Protein backbone atom coordinates (compact mmCIF):
# COMPACT_ATOMS: atom_id res chain seq x y z
CA UNK A 1 0.00 0.00 0.00
CA UNK A 2 1.53 3.25 -1.14
CA UNK A 3 0.71 5.71 1.62
CA UNK A 4 1.36 8.97 -0.25
CA UNK A 5 -1.11 7.94 -2.94
CA UNK A 6 -3.69 6.85 -0.39
CA UNK A 7 -3.21 10.17 1.43
CA UNK A 8 -3.55 12.11 -1.80
CA UNK A 9 -6.70 10.25 -2.79
CA UNK A 10 -8.28 10.86 0.57
CA UNK A 11 -7.50 14.59 0.31
CA UNK A 12 -8.98 14.65 -3.17
CA UNK A 13 -12.17 12.97 -2.11
CA UNK A 14 -12.72 14.77 1.16
CA UNK A 15 -12.13 18.15 -0.47
CA UNK A 16 -14.61 17.60 -3.29
CA UNK A 17 -17.95 19.36 -3.14
CA UNK A 18 -19.70 16.22 -4.33
CA UNK A 19 -18.53 14.25 -1.30
CA UNK A 20 -20.17 16.82 0.95
CA UNK A 21 -23.37 16.38 -1.04
CA UNK A 22 -23.10 12.66 -0.39
CA UNK A 23 -22.80 13.16 3.33
CA UNK A 24 -25.89 15.37 3.18
CA UNK A 25 -27.70 12.68 1.21
CA UNK A 26 -26.71 10.09 3.80
CA UNK A 27 -28.87 11.95 6.28
CA UNK A 28 -31.98 11.03 4.27
CA UNK A 29 -32.31 7.40 5.42
CA UNK A 30 -31.48 8.43 8.97
CA UNK A 31 -34.20 11.07 8.89
CA UNK A 32 -36.60 8.55 7.46
CA UNK A 33 -35.76 6.10 10.24
CA UNK A 34 -36.37 8.75 12.89
CA UNK A 35 -39.73 9.65 11.36
CA UNK A 36 -40.62 5.94 11.22
CA UNK A 37 -39.76 5.48 14.89
CA UNK A 38 -41.54 8.62 16.06
CA UNK A 39 -44.78 7.89 14.30
CA UNK A 40 -44.83 4.17 15.05
CA UNK A 41 -46.79 2.98 12.02
CA UNK A 42 -48.28 -0.50 11.79
CA UNK A 43 -45.61 -1.98 9.49
CA UNK A 44 -43.33 -4.71 10.85
CA UNK A 45 -39.96 -2.96 11.48
CA UNK A 46 -37.79 -5.81 10.13
CA UNK A 47 -39.71 -5.83 6.89
CA UNK A 48 -39.60 -2.02 6.60
CA UNK A 49 -35.85 -2.06 7.19
CA UNK A 50 -35.10 -4.92 4.82
CA UNK A 51 -37.27 -3.82 1.95
CA UNK A 52 -37.68 -0.07 2.12
CA UNK A 53 -35.12 1.58 4.34
CA UNK A 54 -32.00 -0.50 3.69
CA UNK A 55 -33.06 -2.58 0.70
CA UNK A 56 -34.48 0.15 -1.48
CA UNK A 57 -33.01 3.37 -0.21
CA UNK A 58 -29.54 2.40 1.01
CA UNK A 59 -28.59 -0.59 -1.14
CA UNK A 60 -30.72 0.36 -4.12
CA UNK A 61 -29.86 4.05 -4.37
CA UNK A 62 -27.37 5.45 -1.86
CA UNK A 63 -24.71 2.76 -2.10
CA UNK A 64 -24.32 2.75 -5.89
CA UNK A 65 -24.53 6.55 -6.05
CA UNK A 66 -21.90 6.97 -3.34
CA UNK A 67 -19.61 4.44 -4.99
CA UNK A 68 -20.16 6.13 -8.35
CA UNK A 69 -19.43 9.63 -7.08
CA UNK A 70 -16.38 8.52 -5.12
CA UNK A 71 -15.12 6.02 -7.68
CA UNK A 72 -15.21 8.40 -10.62
CA UNK A 73 -13.75 11.28 -8.59
CA UNK A 74 -10.65 9.39 -7.50
CA UNK A 75 -8.93 8.73 -10.80
CA UNK A 76 -11.36 9.77 -13.52
CA UNK A 77 -11.37 13.45 -12.67
CA UNK A 78 -7.58 13.36 -12.42
CA UNK A 79 -7.30 11.94 -15.90
CA UNK A 80 -9.75 14.55 -17.12
CA UNK A 81 -7.97 17.60 -15.71
CA UNK A 82 -4.50 16.29 -16.52
CA UNK A 83 -3.19 15.93 -12.98
CA UNK A 84 -2.92 12.14 -13.42
CA UNK A 85 0.36 12.89 -15.19
CA UNK A 86 1.98 13.65 -11.85
CA UNK A 87 1.28 10.12 -10.66
CA UNK A 88 1.95 8.35 -13.93
CA UNK A 89 5.37 9.99 -14.27
CA UNK A 90 6.75 8.35 -11.18
CA UNK A 91 8.89 5.19 -11.06
CA UNK A 92 6.04 3.09 -9.73
CA UNK A 93 4.33 0.11 -11.31
CA UNK A 94 0.86 1.16 -12.28
CA UNK A 95 -0.79 -1.26 -9.90
CA UNK A 96 0.90 0.60 -7.04
CA UNK A 97 -0.99 3.67 -8.21
CA UNK A 98 -4.32 1.99 -8.79
CA UNK A 99 -4.65 -0.26 -5.77
CA UNK A 100 -4.37 2.42 -3.06
CA UNK A 101 -6.82 4.57 -5.02
CA UNK A 102 -9.28 1.71 -5.20
CA UNK A 103 -8.78 0.87 -1.55
CA UNK A 104 -9.47 4.44 -0.45
CA UNK A 105 -12.57 4.65 -2.63
CA UNK A 106 -13.94 1.40 -1.33
CA UNK A 107 -13.00 2.32 2.23
CA UNK A 108 -14.65 5.72 2.10
CA UNK A 109 -17.83 4.39 0.52
CA UNK A 110 -17.89 1.54 2.98
CA UNK A 111 -17.41 3.81 5.98
CA UNK A 112 -20.18 6.17 4.93
CA UNK A 113 -22.64 3.41 4.08
CA UNK A 114 -21.86 1.36 7.16
CA UNK A 115 -22.63 4.32 9.39
CA UNK A 116 -25.86 4.99 7.53
CA UNK A 117 -26.88 1.33 7.62
CA UNK A 118 -26.20 0.80 11.30
CA UNK A 119 -27.54 4.15 12.54
CA UNK A 120 -30.67 4.24 10.38
CA UNK A 121 -31.29 0.53 10.94
CA UNK A 122 -30.86 0.73 14.70
CA UNK A 123 -33.17 3.72 14.98
CA UNK A 124 -35.88 2.04 12.92
CA UNK A 125 -35.54 -1.36 14.61
CA UNK A 126 -35.73 0.06 18.10
CA UNK A 127 -34.38 -3.11 19.76
CA UNK A 128 -36.56 -5.55 17.90
CA UNK A 129 -34.95 -9.03 17.61
CA UNK A 130 -35.32 -9.71 13.92
CA UNK A 131 -34.22 -6.13 13.30
CA UNK A 132 -30.77 -6.72 14.78
CA UNK A 133 -30.22 -9.72 12.52
CA UNK A 134 -31.32 -7.79 9.47
CA UNK A 135 -29.00 -4.90 10.32
CA UNK A 136 -26.07 -7.26 10.75
CA UNK A 137 -26.88 -8.85 7.42
CA UNK A 138 -26.97 -5.49 5.70
CA UNK A 139 -23.79 -4.31 7.38
CA UNK A 140 -21.88 -7.23 5.92
CA UNK A 141 -23.63 -6.89 2.58
CA UNK A 142 -23.03 -3.15 2.29
CA UNK A 143 -19.35 -3.65 3.07
CA UNK A 144 -19.04 -6.24 0.32
CA UNK A 145 -21.16 -4.18 -2.08
CA UNK A 146 -18.96 -1.10 -1.54
CA UNK A 147 -15.91 -3.02 -2.69
CA UNK A 148 -17.59 -4.46 -5.78
CA UNK A 149 -19.15 -1.17 -6.87
CA UNK A 150 -15.92 0.75 -6.29
CA UNK A 151 -13.94 -1.69 -8.41
CA UNK A 152 -16.53 -1.42 -11.17
CA UNK A 153 -16.69 2.36 -11.21
CA UNK A 154 -12.93 2.85 -10.97
CA UNK A 155 -12.66 0.53 -13.95
CA UNK A 156 -15.26 2.58 -15.77
CA UNK A 157 -13.41 5.80 -15.02
CA UNK A 158 -10.14 4.61 -16.55
CA UNK A 159 -11.90 3.38 -19.66
CA UNK A 160 -14.17 6.29 -20.54
CA UNK A 161 -14.33 10.00 -19.95
CA UNK A 162 -18.09 9.66 -19.62
CA UNK A 163 -17.84 7.37 -16.63
CA UNK A 164 -20.29 9.30 -14.50
CA UNK A 165 -23.15 9.30 -16.96
CA UNK A 166 -22.52 5.67 -17.95
CA UNK A 167 -22.54 4.72 -14.28
CA UNK A 168 -25.81 6.55 -13.77
CA UNK A 169 -27.35 4.68 -16.65
CA UNK A 170 -26.11 1.37 -15.23
CA UNK A 171 -27.47 2.11 -11.77
CA UNK A 172 -30.84 3.51 -12.77
CA UNK A 173 -31.62 1.66 -15.95
CA UNK A 174 -29.99 -1.71 -15.53
CA UNK A 175 -30.24 -2.26 -11.80
CA UNK A 176 -33.52 -0.47 -11.10
CA UNK A 177 -35.52 -1.32 -14.19
CA UNK A 178 -34.11 -4.17 -16.25
CA UNK A 179 -33.27 -6.53 -13.39
CA UNK A 180 -36.70 -5.97 -11.91
CA UNK A 181 -38.52 -6.85 -15.07
CA UNK A 182 -36.25 -9.62 -16.37
CA UNK A 183 -35.44 -11.69 -13.31
CA UNK A 184 -32.93 -13.77 -15.24
CA UNK A 185 -30.59 -10.78 -15.41
CA UNK A 186 -30.26 -10.67 -11.65
CA UNK A 187 -27.11 -12.78 -11.83
CA UNK A 188 -25.54 -9.66 -13.36
CA UNK A 189 -26.69 -7.13 -10.77
CA UNK A 190 -24.50 -5.96 -7.91
CA UNK A 191 -27.61 -4.79 -6.12
CA UNK A 192 -29.00 -8.30 -6.19
CA UNK A 193 -25.71 -9.75 -4.91
CA UNK A 194 -25.81 -7.33 -2.03
CA UNK A 195 -29.39 -8.16 -1.10
CA UNK A 196 -28.62 -11.88 -1.35
CA UNK A 197 -25.67 -11.53 1.01
CA UNK A 198 -27.78 -9.57 3.49
CA UNK A 199 -30.44 -12.26 3.25
CA UNK A 200 -27.92 -15.05 3.83
CA UNK A 201 -26.23 -13.42 6.78
CA UNK A 202 -29.41 -12.21 8.46
CA UNK A 203 -31.03 -15.63 8.20
CA UNK A 204 -34.59 -14.57 9.04
CA UNK A 205 -37.91 -15.68 7.65
CA UNK A 206 -38.05 -15.55 3.88
CA UNK A 207 -40.94 -13.07 3.76
CA UNK A 208 -38.67 -10.29 4.98
CA UNK A 209 -36.51 -10.11 1.83
CA UNK A 210 -37.57 -9.73 -1.77
CA UNK A 211 -34.38 -11.03 -3.41
CA UNK A 212 -34.20 -14.39 -5.12
CA UNK A 213 -30.53 -15.05 -5.74
CA UNK A 214 -28.61 -17.78 -3.91
CA UNK A 215 -26.23 -16.35 -1.38
CA UNK A 216 -23.28 -18.53 -2.39
CA UNK A 217 -23.77 -17.64 -6.03
CA UNK A 218 -23.83 -13.99 -5.10
CA UNK A 219 -20.61 -14.30 -3.11
CA UNK A 220 -18.82 -16.05 -5.96
CA UNK A 221 -20.01 -13.44 -8.43
CA UNK A 222 -18.89 -10.60 -6.16
CA UNK A 223 -15.38 -12.02 -5.88
CA UNK A 224 -15.18 -12.65 -9.61
CA UNK A 225 -16.43 -9.19 -10.57
CA UNK A 226 -14.10 -7.42 -8.13
CA UNK A 227 -11.00 -9.30 -9.23
CA UNK A 228 -11.79 -8.97 -12.91
CA UNK A 229 -12.57 -5.24 -12.66
CA UNK A 230 -9.37 -4.58 -10.73
CA UNK A 231 -7.29 -6.61 -13.15
CA UNK A 232 -8.65 -4.84 -16.20
CA UNK A 233 -8.31 -1.42 -14.57
CA UNK A 234 -4.62 -2.07 -13.88
CA UNK A 235 -4.10 -3.41 -17.39
CA UNK A 236 -5.73 -0.36 -18.87
CA UNK A 237 -3.62 1.98 -16.75
CA UNK A 238 -0.45 0.20 -17.81
CA UNK A 239 -1.28 0.88 -21.43
CA UNK A 240 -2.72 4.30 -20.83
CA UNK A 241 -1.76 6.76 -23.57
CA UNK A 242 -1.74 10.47 -22.89
CA UNK A 243 -1.84 12.49 -26.07
CA UNK A 244 -2.21 16.11 -26.94
CA UNK A 245 -5.80 16.42 -25.91
CA UNK A 246 -5.83 14.14 -22.88
Amino acid at each position, binding site marked *: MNMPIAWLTLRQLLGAK*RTLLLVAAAL*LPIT*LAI*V*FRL*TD*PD*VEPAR*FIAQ*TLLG*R*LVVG*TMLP*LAALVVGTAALGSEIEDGTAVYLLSKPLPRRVILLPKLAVCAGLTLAMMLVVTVVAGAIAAGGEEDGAAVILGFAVAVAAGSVVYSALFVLLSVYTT*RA*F*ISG*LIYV*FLWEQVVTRIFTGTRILSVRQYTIAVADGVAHVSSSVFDGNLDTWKAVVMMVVVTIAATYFAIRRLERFEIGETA
Partner: protein
Amino acid sequence: MSERQSASGNIYDLGYRRYEGVRLGRRHAVVTLYLHSLRAAFGLGRPATAKIVPFGLAILALIPATIQLGIAAVASDIVELYSHSGYYSYVQWIIALFVAAVAPELVGRDQRSRTLTLYFSRSLLRVDYAIAKVAALTTALFVLTLLPQFVLFLGRAFAQDDLVGYARDNWRDLPPIIASGVLLCFFMASIAIAIASQTKRRAFATGGVLAYFAISLAMAGILLATLGGDTGGWALLLSGFHIAQGFTLWIFNIEPSSSETSSTYDLYQAGLSLWVYCVAALVYLAVCLGIIYRRYQGISA
Protein backbone atom coordinates in the same frame (compact mmCIF):
# COMPACT_ATOMS: atom_id res chain seq x y z
CA MET B 1 -7.29 51.26 -50.16
CA SER B 2 -9.08 54.46 -51.06
CA GLU B 3 -11.73 54.84 -53.74
CA ARG B 4 -10.74 55.90 -57.17
CA GLN B 5 -13.11 56.80 -59.91
CA SER B 6 -12.87 57.72 -63.55
CA ALA B 7 -15.42 57.94 -66.31
CA SER B 8 -15.43 54.22 -67.03
CA GLY B 9 -13.74 52.50 -64.11
CA ASN B 10 -14.07 52.47 -60.33
CA ILE B 11 -12.05 51.03 -57.48
CA TYR B 12 -14.19 50.77 -54.38
CA ASP B 13 -13.01 51.02 -50.84
CA LEU B 14 -13.08 47.64 -49.12
CA GLY B 15 -11.36 48.89 -46.00
CA TYR B 16 -12.78 49.04 -42.54
CA ARG B 17 -16.02 50.93 -42.18
CA ARG B 18 -17.26 52.43 -38.98
CA TYR B 19 -20.68 51.55 -37.69
CA GLU B 20 -22.81 54.67 -37.43
CA GLY B 21 -26.19 53.01 -36.80
CA VAL B 22 -28.16 52.66 -33.60
CA ARG B 23 -26.96 50.73 -30.59
CA LEU B 24 -29.94 49.13 -28.94
CA GLY B 25 -28.60 48.56 -25.47
CA ARG B 26 -29.45 46.31 -22.61
CA ARG B 27 -33.04 45.35 -23.32
CA HIS B 28 -32.18 44.27 -26.84
CA ALA B 29 -29.33 42.19 -25.44
CA VAL B 30 -31.71 40.39 -23.05
CA VAL B 31 -34.20 39.68 -25.83
CA THR B 32 -31.42 38.43 -28.10
CA LEU B 33 -30.09 36.12 -25.43
CA TYR B 34 -33.62 34.90 -24.66
CA LEU B 35 -34.34 34.06 -28.30
CA HIS B 36 -30.95 32.49 -28.76
CA SER B 37 -31.45 30.31 -25.67
CA LEU B 38 -34.94 29.36 -26.76
CA ARG B 39 -33.59 28.14 -30.07
CA ALA B 40 -30.74 26.38 -28.29
CA ALA B 41 -33.24 24.56 -26.06
CA PHE B 42 -34.41 22.65 -29.11
CA GLY B 43 -30.96 22.37 -30.60
CA LEU B 44 -31.74 24.82 -33.39
CA GLY B 45 -28.60 26.25 -34.88
CA ARG B 46 -26.73 23.26 -33.52
CA PRO B 47 -25.78 19.98 -35.12
CA ALA B 48 -28.51 17.42 -35.73
CA THR B 49 -27.55 15.31 -32.71
CA ALA B 50 -28.43 18.21 -30.41
CA LYS B 51 -32.01 18.13 -31.68
CA ILE B 52 -32.72 14.46 -30.97
CA VAL B 53 -33.44 14.66 -27.25
CA PRO B 54 -35.57 17.84 -27.13
CA PHE B 55 -37.58 17.00 -30.20
CA GLY B 56 -37.95 13.35 -29.20
CA LEU B 57 -39.33 14.35 -25.80
CA ALA B 58 -41.60 17.00 -27.28
CA ILE B 59 -43.06 14.41 -29.61
CA LEU B 60 -43.50 11.95 -26.75
CA ALA B 61 -45.37 14.61 -24.79
CA LEU B 62 -47.70 15.14 -27.71
CA ILE B 63 -48.54 11.47 -28.23
CA PRO B 64 -51.42 11.14 -25.73
CA ALA B 65 -53.08 14.28 -27.09
CA THR B 66 -52.58 13.10 -30.64
CA ILE B 67 -54.16 9.78 -29.80
CA GLN B 68 -57.19 11.65 -28.52
CA LEU B 69 -57.23 13.63 -31.73
CA GLY B 70 -57.03 10.39 -33.73
CA ILE B 71 -59.86 8.83 -31.79
CA ALA B 72 -61.93 11.90 -32.46
CA ALA B 73 -61.28 11.47 -36.13
CA VAL B 74 -62.29 7.82 -36.22
CA ALA B 75 -65.15 7.58 -33.82
CA SER B 76 -66.76 10.75 -32.65
CA ASP B 77 -68.61 9.84 -29.48
CA ILE B 78 -66.16 7.58 -27.66
CA VAL B 79 -65.01 8.25 -24.11
CA GLU B 80 -62.31 10.75 -23.55
CA LEU B 81 -58.99 9.16 -22.60
CA TYR B 82 -57.23 12.18 -21.20
CA SER B 83 -58.55 15.14 -19.30
CA HIS B 84 -56.99 18.62 -19.25
CA SER B 85 -56.40 18.53 -15.53
CA GLY B 86 -54.81 15.08 -15.59
CA TYR B 87 -52.65 15.54 -18.64
CA TYR B 88 -49.53 16.65 -16.84
CA SER B 89 -49.48 13.46 -14.78
CA TYR B 90 -49.00 11.50 -17.97
CA VAL B 91 -46.16 13.65 -19.18
CA GLN B 92 -44.48 14.66 -15.90
CA TRP B 93 -41.49 12.39 -16.43
CA ILE B 94 -41.13 13.61 -19.97
CA ILE B 95 -41.08 17.18 -18.73
CA ALA B 96 -38.55 16.27 -16.05
CA LEU B 97 -36.32 14.54 -18.59
CA PHE B 98 -36.62 17.56 -20.85
CA VAL B 99 -35.53 20.08 -18.23
CA ALA B 100 -32.80 17.73 -17.01
CA ALA B 101 -31.42 17.49 -20.53
CA VAL B 102 -31.96 21.09 -21.62
CA ALA B 103 -31.20 23.21 -18.53
CA PRO B 104 -27.54 22.09 -18.45
CA GLU B 105 -27.34 22.97 -22.14
CA LEU B 106 -28.65 26.46 -21.49
CA VAL B 107 -26.59 27.38 -18.46
CA GLY B 108 -23.77 24.83 -18.29
CA ARG B 109 -22.43 25.38 -21.77
CA ASP B 110 -21.72 29.05 -21.19
CA GLN B 111 -19.82 28.17 -18.05
CA ARG B 112 -17.97 25.30 -19.68
CA SER B 113 -16.82 27.24 -22.69
CA ARG B 114 -16.49 30.40 -20.58
CA THR B 115 -18.67 32.41 -22.93
CA LEU B 116 -20.18 33.87 -19.78
CA THR B 117 -17.25 36.27 -19.60
CA LEU B 118 -18.14 37.65 -23.01
CA TYR B 119 -21.79 38.14 -22.08
CA PHE B 120 -20.92 40.01 -18.92
CA SER B 121 -18.49 42.21 -20.81
CA ARG B 122 -21.43 43.46 -22.91
CA SER B 123 -24.29 45.60 -21.69
CA LEU B 124 -26.02 42.61 -20.08
CA LEU B 125 -26.15 42.57 -16.32
CA ARG B 126 -25.82 39.33 -14.43
CA VAL B 127 -29.44 39.36 -13.43
CA ASP B 128 -30.41 39.91 -17.08
CA TYR B 129 -28.61 36.74 -17.99
CA ALA B 130 -30.50 34.74 -15.35
CA ILE B 131 -33.84 36.21 -16.45
CA ALA B 132 -33.20 35.39 -20.10
CA LYS B 133 -32.29 31.79 -19.29
CA VAL B 134 -35.23 31.07 -16.99
CA ALA B 135 -37.61 32.72 -19.44
CA ALA B 136 -36.21 30.72 -22.34
CA LEU B 137 -36.58 27.37 -20.60
CA THR B 138 -40.08 28.29 -19.40
CA THR B 139 -41.11 29.17 -22.93
CA ALA B 140 -39.51 26.05 -24.37
CA LEU B 141 -41.61 23.97 -22.00
CA PHE B 142 -44.81 25.43 -23.44
CA VAL B 143 -44.24 23.12 -26.37
CA LEU B 144 -44.53 20.18 -23.99
CA THR B 145 -47.47 21.52 -21.99
CA LEU B 146 -49.66 24.10 -23.70
CA LEU B 147 -49.26 22.66 -27.17
CA PRO B 148 -50.56 19.18 -26.23
CA GLN B 149 -53.34 20.79 -24.19
CA PHE B 150 -54.36 22.74 -27.23
CA VAL B 151 -54.28 19.60 -29.38
CA LEU B 152 -56.32 17.85 -26.72
CA PHE B 153 -58.82 20.70 -26.71
CA LEU B 154 -59.17 20.35 -30.47
CA GLY B 155 -59.46 16.58 -30.15
CA ARG B 156 -62.31 16.89 -27.73
CA ALA B 157 -63.91 19.55 -29.85
CA PHE B 158 -63.73 17.40 -32.96
CA ALA B 159 -65.32 14.55 -31.06
CA GLN B 160 -68.48 16.68 -30.85
CA ASP B 161 -70.75 17.24 -33.80
CA ASP B 162 -70.98 20.92 -33.18
CA LEU B 163 -67.47 22.38 -33.14
CA VAL B 164 -68.47 26.00 -32.57
CA GLY B 165 -70.96 24.93 -29.96
CA TYR B 166 -68.25 23.00 -28.12
CA ALA B 167 -65.93 25.95 -28.18
CA ARG B 168 -68.68 28.23 -26.93
CA ASP B 169 -69.61 25.88 -24.11
CA ASN B 170 -66.08 25.01 -23.06
CA TRP B 171 -64.04 28.18 -23.54
CA ARG B 172 -63.96 28.44 -19.78
CA ASP B 173 -61.52 25.51 -19.82
CA LEU B 174 -58.92 27.66 -21.49
CA PRO B 175 -57.94 30.06 -18.66
CA PRO B 176 -57.13 27.21 -16.22
CA ILE B 177 -55.28 25.36 -18.98
CA ILE B 178 -53.13 28.35 -19.67
CA ALA B 179 -52.69 29.34 -16.03
CA SER B 180 -51.69 25.85 -14.91
CA GLY B 181 -49.45 25.38 -17.95
CA VAL B 182 -47.58 28.62 -17.41
CA LEU B 183 -47.16 28.01 -13.69
CA LEU B 184 -45.99 24.45 -14.29
CA CYS B 185 -43.41 25.53 -16.86
CA PHE B 186 -42.10 28.35 -14.70
CA PHE B 187 -41.93 26.01 -11.70
CA MET B 188 -40.08 23.21 -13.48
CA ALA B 189 -37.73 25.59 -15.32
CA SER B 190 -36.74 27.40 -12.12
CA ILE B 191 -36.00 24.19 -10.25
CA ALA B 192 -33.96 22.83 -13.12
CA ILE B 193 -31.94 26.01 -13.66
CA ALA B 194 -31.33 26.45 -9.94
CA ILE B 195 -29.77 22.98 -9.85
CA ALA B 196 -28.07 23.00 -13.25
CA SER B 197 -26.42 26.42 -12.81
CA GLN B 198 -24.40 25.09 -9.88
CA THR B 199 -22.08 23.06 -12.07
CA LYS B 200 -20.56 23.35 -15.50
CA ARG B 201 -20.43 19.58 -15.91
CA ARG B 202 -23.38 18.35 -17.89
CA ALA B 203 -23.43 14.87 -16.36
CA PHE B 204 -23.66 16.25 -12.84
CA ALA B 205 -26.29 18.80 -13.79
CA THR B 206 -28.52 16.28 -15.55
CA GLY B 207 -27.98 13.76 -12.78
CA GLY B 208 -28.75 16.39 -10.16
CA VAL B 209 -32.03 17.48 -11.71
CA LEU B 210 -33.22 13.92 -12.22
CA ALA B 211 -32.04 12.91 -8.76
CA TYR B 212 -34.12 15.68 -7.21
CA PHE B 213 -37.33 14.56 -8.91
CA ALA B 214 -36.69 10.83 -8.45
CA ILE B 215 -35.50 10.94 -4.85
CA SER B 216 -38.15 13.41 -3.71
CA LEU B 217 -40.84 11.31 -5.39
CA ALA B 218 -39.56 8.13 -3.75
CA MET B 219 -39.23 9.74 -0.32
CA ALA B 220 -42.72 11.19 -0.54
CA GLY B 221 -44.09 7.80 -1.53
CA ILE B 222 -42.28 5.94 1.25
CA LEU B 223 -43.25 8.46 3.90
CA LEU B 224 -46.86 8.53 2.82
CA ALA B 225 -47.04 4.73 2.77
CA THR B 226 -45.37 4.14 6.12
CA LEU B 227 -46.80 7.07 8.03
CA GLY B 228 -50.27 7.16 6.56
CA GLY B 229 -52.31 10.20 5.59
CA ASP B 230 -52.26 12.55 8.55
CA THR B 231 -48.56 13.14 9.00
CA GLY B 232 -47.27 11.48 5.84
CA GLY B 233 -49.32 13.83 3.73
CA TRP B 234 -46.98 16.73 4.34
CA ALA B 235 -44.21 14.65 2.78
CA LEU B 236 -45.77 15.27 -0.61
CA LEU B 237 -44.55 18.86 -0.34
CA LEU B 238 -41.01 17.51 -0.80
CA SER B 239 -41.86 16.24 -4.22
CA GLY B 240 -41.96 18.52 -7.23
CA PHE B 241 -44.30 16.21 -9.10
CA HIS B 242 -46.85 16.11 -6.31
CA ILE B 243 -46.79 19.87 -5.91
CA ALA B 244 -47.37 20.30 -9.63
CA GLN B 245 -50.26 17.87 -9.49
CA GLY B 246 -51.70 19.66 -6.50
CA PHE B 247 -51.71 23.16 -7.93
CA THR B 248 -53.02 21.93 -11.27
CA LEU B 249 -56.05 20.39 -9.57
CA TRP B 250 -56.52 23.55 -7.53
CA ILE B 251 -56.47 25.71 -10.64
CA PHE B 252 -58.98 23.42 -12.37
CA ASN B 253 -60.94 23.27 -9.12
CA ILE B 254 -61.07 19.45 -9.12
CA GLU B 255 -60.74 17.23 -6.05
CA PRO B 256 -58.25 14.31 -6.14
CA SER B 257 -59.77 10.94 -6.90
CA SER B 258 -60.35 8.32 -4.21
CA SER B 259 -59.80 5.50 -6.69
CA GLU B 260 -56.61 3.56 -5.86
CA THR B 261 -55.60 3.32 -9.50
CA SER B 262 -55.89 7.03 -10.08
CA SER B 263 -52.77 9.12 -10.50
CA THR B 264 -54.11 11.56 -7.94
CA TYR B 265 -54.64 8.91 -5.25
CA ASP B 266 -51.55 10.11 -3.32
CA LEU B 267 -53.08 13.56 -3.04
CA TYR B 268 -56.38 12.09 -1.92
CA GLN B 269 -54.60 10.05 0.75
CA ALA B 270 -52.62 13.01 1.95
CA GLY B 271 -55.78 15.00 2.42
CA LEU B 272 -54.14 18.42 2.30
CA SER B 273 -56.14 21.34 0.99
CA LEU B 274 -55.14 21.97 -2.57
CA TRP B 275 -54.21 25.62 -2.04
CA VAL B 276 -51.37 24.37 0.16
CA TYR B 277 -49.67 22.99 -2.98
CA CYS B 278 -50.08 26.35 -4.63
CA VAL B 279 -48.37 28.12 -1.75
CA ALA B 280 -45.65 25.48 -1.76
CA ALA B 281 -45.08 26.05 -5.47
CA LEU B 282 -44.66 29.78 -4.90
CA VAL B 283 -42.22 29.15 -2.06
CA TYR B 284 -40.22 26.79 -4.28
CA LEU B 285 -40.18 29.40 -7.03
CA ALA B 286 -38.97 32.13 -4.70
CA VAL B 287 -36.22 29.91 -3.29
CA CYS B 288 -35.07 28.74 -6.70
CA LEU B 289 -34.98 32.22 -8.18
CA GLY B 290 -33.04 33.37 -5.14
CA ILE B 291 -30.53 30.57 -5.64
CA ILE B 292 -30.15 31.44 -9.31
CA TYR B 293 -29.72 35.14 -8.54
CA ARG B 294 -27.06 34.44 -5.94
CA ARG B 295 -25.26 32.05 -8.24
CA TYR B 296 -24.88 34.60 -11.01
CA GLN B 297 -23.98 37.44 -8.69
CA GLY B 298 -21.19 35.33 -7.26
CA ILE B 299 -19.88 33.57 -10.32
CA SER B 300 -16.49 34.85 -11.43
CA ALA B 301 -16.27 35.73 -15.08
